[in-house]
């Protein structure tokens, strides 16, 4: 009898404690003064920064200890100047009174990429913008994405640390001066195939900006006062007569497009006249060869109006434009003056509801991709249901694996991270046929690339979920080595 209350007391008061050591991945030597963070693991948020619940500094022997943590699932992350940041290892579970020791966190020494930006005379260009880009994959295939950027220092120099080994492209552009572009100006220069080896520094990279003859394009949007006009990364506001101007254009083909969404906001500018701006959409493509252009005309018309009706429940709807801009209407479910563009429809239904179908003008909207390029206004009909099923399973021995649920119809997958025992659970799954893929460590963007994903279709587990069905699947882990081997074969 006495033993029972004692046991309970022991469980309640035993401190949850974990300890370990941080070492260099290259030498194995302990690292002092590293910051170790314990983060609460959340399965449903791959790629999201997790909340830190406790942190500690390592001592002279690289040791750390964390105590007094509530039971739950956690990840350990570590950082130290001079080393690549470790954003978190495999998740693990801590029960009340657990004492876990022997954690080893390995930090990879950083490679330094340093150089300077020069002008056409070889003089330093302070405040030049330097971007480090590397190849990433998306649904559309291979593309370059900026992963680090900085302004050059007083002597035109730049230093980037914490870059993982790999092949990079460095893009340097002249500083923004705010002055109208001259006839000749410094233009951006790209240095491709900069290779960083593990632990190896690359210093003394010289990027010479080139001087180029640039041109100006002036034009008009008849009846389009106070609009925003985009041209690549440039933008210009039209004046009272609808006139706009872009400077600093290199020879090439450009498209100038009015932005009805942004133009609408102009009427709220403080201190300016608050005459409502008619949201107009139009575009004009022009070619700059070796002269200024003065007579560009953009014929603009009203944008597309969209309303949404939701059947079977309540939901928030956000439209995501091609350029990533999110358009939310504060729950009114009505949008006016949308550019005739393609939009991804994000529907966030109330708890335990799912999106059964989306229709626009009586036709189904496939993969939530709404095509308004025809310029016709209309109604979006969204049907919700709450008879979703459930898919549970496990990836053996793979805590933290990226688990994806792909529908037979296509579109982006649902994804989450496997828990401490490799377990996963997809809830509120619309009835239908699915494939489940589990990846050891992969850039989620890469899995969107159909050509890459197709190589692993054999590893997918297939499952059919009925209304309120409860299914179990055993997912097969796609190993790091297999992923690397397929990446090497990509175009």
């Amino acid at each position, binding site marked *: 009898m006495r033993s029972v209350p004692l046991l309970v007391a022991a469980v309640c008061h035993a401190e949850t404690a974990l300890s370990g050591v941080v070492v260099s991945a290259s030498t194995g030597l302990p690292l002092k*003064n590293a910051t170790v963070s314990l983060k609460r693991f959340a399965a449903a948020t791959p790629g999201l920064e997790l909340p830190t619940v406790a942190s500690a500094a390592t001592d002279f022997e690289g040791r750390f200890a964390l105590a007094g943590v509530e039971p739950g699932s956690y990840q350990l992350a570590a950082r130290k*100047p001079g080393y690549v940041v470790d954003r978190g290892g495999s998740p693990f579970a801590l029960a009340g009174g657990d004492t876990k020791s022997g954690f080893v966190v390995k930090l990879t020494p*950083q490679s330094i990429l340093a150089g300077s930006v020069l002008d056409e005379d070889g003089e330093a260009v302070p405040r030049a913008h330097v971007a480090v880009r590397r190849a990433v994959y998306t649904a559309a295939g291979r593309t370059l994405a900026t992963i680090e950027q900085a302004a050059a220092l*007083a002597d035109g*120099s730049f230093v980037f*640390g*914490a870059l993982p080994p790999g092949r990079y492209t460095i893009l340097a552009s002249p500083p923004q001066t705010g002055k109208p572009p001259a006839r000749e100006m410094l233009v951006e220069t790209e240095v491709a195939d900069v290779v960083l080896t593990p632990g190896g520094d690359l210093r003394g990279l010289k990027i010479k900006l080139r001087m180029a003859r640039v041109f100006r394009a002036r034009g008009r949007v008849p009846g389009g006062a106070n609009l925003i006009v985009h041209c690549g990364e440039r933008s210009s506001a039209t004046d009272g007569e609808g006139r706009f101007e872009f400077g600093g254009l290199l020879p090439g083909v450009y498209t100038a497009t009015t932005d009805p969404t942004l133009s609408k906001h102009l009427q709220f500018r403080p201190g300016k006249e608050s005459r409502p701006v008619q949201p107009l959409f139009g575009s004009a493509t022009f070619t700059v060869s070796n002269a200024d252009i003065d007579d560009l005309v953009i014929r603009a018309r009203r944008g597309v109006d969209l309303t949404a009706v939701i059947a079977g429940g309540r939901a928030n709807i956000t439209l995501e434009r091609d350029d990533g801009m999110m358009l939310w209407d504060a729950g009114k479910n009505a949008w006016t003056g949308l550019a005739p563009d393609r939009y991804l429809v994000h529907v966030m239904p109330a708890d335990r509801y799912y999106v059964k179908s989306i229709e626009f003008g009586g036709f189904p909207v496939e993969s939530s991709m709404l095509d308004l390029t025809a310029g016709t206004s209309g109604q979006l009909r969204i049907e919700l249901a709450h008879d979703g099923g459930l898919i549970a399973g496990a990836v053996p021995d793979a805590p933290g694996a990226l688990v994806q649920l792909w529908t037979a119809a296509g579109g982006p997958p649902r994804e989450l991270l496997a828990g401490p025992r490799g377990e996963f659970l997809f809830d509120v799954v619309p009835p239908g046929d699915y494939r489940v893929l589990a990846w050891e460590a992969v850039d989620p963007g890469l899995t969107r690339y159909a050509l890459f994903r197709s190589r692993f279709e054999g590893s997918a587990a297939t499952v059919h979920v009925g209304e309120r069905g409860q299914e179990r699947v055993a997912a097969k882990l796609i190993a790091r080595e297999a992923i690397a081997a397929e990446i090497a074969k990509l175009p």
Partner: protein
Amino acid sequence: MRFLLLLTAAVCFAQPAPEKSALTGRVVSAATGAPLKKATVWLEKFSSERGVNNAPSVPEVITDAEGRFHIPGVEPGAYLLQARRTGYLDQGYGSPVPDTVGPPLELGAGETKRDLVLKLMPQSLVYGKIVDEDNDPAPGAQVAVLRVSYAGGHRHLVDAGMSESQDDGSFVVGNLKPGRYYVSAFLPNMSQPPSSERHIKTFYPSAADAADAQPVEVAAGAEVRGVAIRLRKSRVFRVRGRAVIAADSTPAAEVSFLLQPLGRGGKTFQDGRFEIEAVPPGSYWLETAPQQVVAARIPITVAENDVEGVVFPIGNGAMVDCKVRGADTGSIALTPVGRGADSRFELQIGGARFYHLLPVAYEIDVNGLPKGSYVKGITFQGRPVVDWTVDLSAGSGGDLIVEVSPDAGEVSGKIDQPGAVVQIWPADGATARSTRSGPHGEFRFDSLPPGDYRVLAWQDLDDDLAQYAPFRAAFSADASSVHVGERGHERAEPRTIALDAIAAEAAKLK
């Protein structure tokens, strides 16, 4: 009679608009004499106000491959001609030193000034590295290159350039004039491991106190390398307590607070609790942050332990009601003594009431009074205010009465140099007023309270030194004396102190 009037009108009408003027010249390197292309040259309308109004009156021009520039179509008048270029220090035409505007140029109608040469001094750079106690790089440190300033009447260090240490711990600060500098580095708390010891602000080479900092001598156009700062560590402690409403001891929720001069703080929780992490030992003031409807301040001393159980009573602060007699335009401002412009409150005369003031001493300044008026006297709670400072440290407010008299005098005169700094200060006071002499060396001070004054001119003077009374005192024998009576108009022709004499005396200050 009628005819005559008409004729006059016709003559006026027929008078052509004044002819435009122009300037041409070259920009060269002060170091090599070589022409500098791609330099920006601009004109600014001359004003006797010392400051620079950053709006160029004429579009900027860029020098060509031979360093030449040409500014056509300038309205006749007095101008400051200036040039800047990447890698060089800004330079005013005719100024012997960089970063100052130089004497004004007078352009007659239709006149073209030729062969103007602007000599640009190459920038100096300081290179170095920030490391920790193991000589490992410390990235993300705020690095400041500092110089001595006398602004506000006392010696202190101000930023001459800033940078952040890079991922390998290196830093570079450019755009420096030749001179003596100090370098400090500070690692923000968020980029330090959570330990009971933290890196603290450290001066080159490894000093915790500015008094022990080693200077870095920087020559014109020099690249000074190897300025390595080894960050010092200090034990740090936690300060915890509760903020309560002073009147009824209930929790004071969501009050923003600051620990000064550390400059860190936060917001109290719903139950009034607050916590400040990682405080090095020292004496501090726990204060409510500005722009709130409360004000309070208590001293905190951190020695060798965490400070627990601090009770921070929050009150409304003091209210000062300013009544200005004898003027109905202008403004009055209060600034806590020793604080920057971000702590300054300014209100228009006429119902100027300052609420929620901290229990500290405030400096008063009155601006924009009608021309020819001056502040004859100030009283607070019925007692005269001396040195423009009102002490609220007892915590209570009251009426601040400002007496304005319309009987101010003026002093005008002429010196032998255009564009020099002319100063006037009361014979028994510390605060000087400054102006710049015009194209013919003329100057004028108005709205002067009656009294005895000293007047002196400087070929050019650092804004900072201009307000340092001990520096001026060294030249008191050179100053002209002038007595200004009520509504008096006096003339003065003071001496001009040359740059080398100024530099020699400034050197003695160190």
